[in-house]
């Protein structure tokens, strides 16, 4: 069955859901429709997509995206990829945990790294980062403290241990110290969104 047919089937079964074709995958334009579509795909005799392989987030600068890879263990078909897009500020997508238990940790991971809030998730906490960590490290605008730019105290320590520190680094560290700033990574020029 071609993906195009699956899309048509979904649209006939669930009228009112706005679907769009993006890169061979099905974009659900209103994220709130996601559980409906997933439930249809899981329960309908024709598809039986009973296995949610992967859930992940992605950051496309204007919006965040959640990507779901569905397979069928019964029919041994797949993958069928769903995606939902949300704004960066109100990143709210209904959780798929009631349908697929396997989404539990993966949604927690997506929340941890991208800050997508999965509604109705039974236990939405950070999973890799510690409690109280600020920001979402996988977002493209996340600025990381950089260990490659040395601070004045680092240079002091290194020189005490007979390590040559190049002049440029020293100058930079002094500038930073004057400004009272910490070393943060410079991001390369932002690539263009899809």
């Amino acid at each position, binding site marked *: 069955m071609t993906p195009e047919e699956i899309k048509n089937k979904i649209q006939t079964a669930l009228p009112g859901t706005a679907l769009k074709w993006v890169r061979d995958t099905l974009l659900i334009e209103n994220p709130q429709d996601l559980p409906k579509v997933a439930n249809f795909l899981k329960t309908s005799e024709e598809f039986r997509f009973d296995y949610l392989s992967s859930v992940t987030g992605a950051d496309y600068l204007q919006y965040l995206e959640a990507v779901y890879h569905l397979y069928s263990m019964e029919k041994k078909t797949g993958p069928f990829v769903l995606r939902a897009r949300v704004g960066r500020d109100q990143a709210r997508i209904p959780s798929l945990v009631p349908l697929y238990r396997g989404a539990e940790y993966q949604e927690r991971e997506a929340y941890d790294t991208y800050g997508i809030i999965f509604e109705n998730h039974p236990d939405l906490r950070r999973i890799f980062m510690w409690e109280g960590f600020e920001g979402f490290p996988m977002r493209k605008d996340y600025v990381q403290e950089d260990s490659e730019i040395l601070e004045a105290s680092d240079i002091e320590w290194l020189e005490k*241990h007979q*390590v*040559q520190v*190049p002049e440029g680094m020293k100058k930079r560290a002094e500038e930073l110290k004057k400004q009272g700033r910490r070393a943060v990574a410079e991001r390369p020029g932002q690539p263009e969104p899809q």
Partner: protein
Amino acid sequence: MIFGSGVLRSMLITLKNFFTSYFKGPEEGGIFTVEYPETRLPEKERFRNFPFLVYDRNPENLRCVACDICAKECPPKCIYIVREFDKEGRPLKRPAVFDIDFTVCMNCGICEEACPFDAIYMDHEFEIAGPERQSRLLYHKDDLLKSNEYFHKIRPTDATAIDQQRREAEEKKKAAAEAAAKAKQPD
């Protein structure tokens, strides 16, 4: 099956191993310990540990041209290169500083692959432990330099193949230069 026979059977296996350990070699299921400082496993040719820089003939004549490709490609970014300049401030084709932080290096061999000048290779040396981290494991240019003969010693197959390639490339270059010179001469 009597209850307990499975336990007895597994105990027989260990007893068998207890006795065979006295008689049999490692291949037949005997002791496979290698008593390390006294005996060593044979060195594998492709074994890679930390990188080193190759020079031809004398240490002044090192192959590295400070192109910075390995430093850019290095996944954990453990290579730091500064190009050397002559008195007039023109860049020379050799590094002034070539540091590798072995505490960061993860022995992946990407630098070796990426180097277009066959200048950096993975060493077999692995006993580099020392009492101090920063001074002992930050290797500078002088520590990294090793001769082509050493490279031949540890990895004969690769070294001969690379020497062959280099020779061919040089000959081609020479031929091209001669051809160019010939082409220039007539006028």
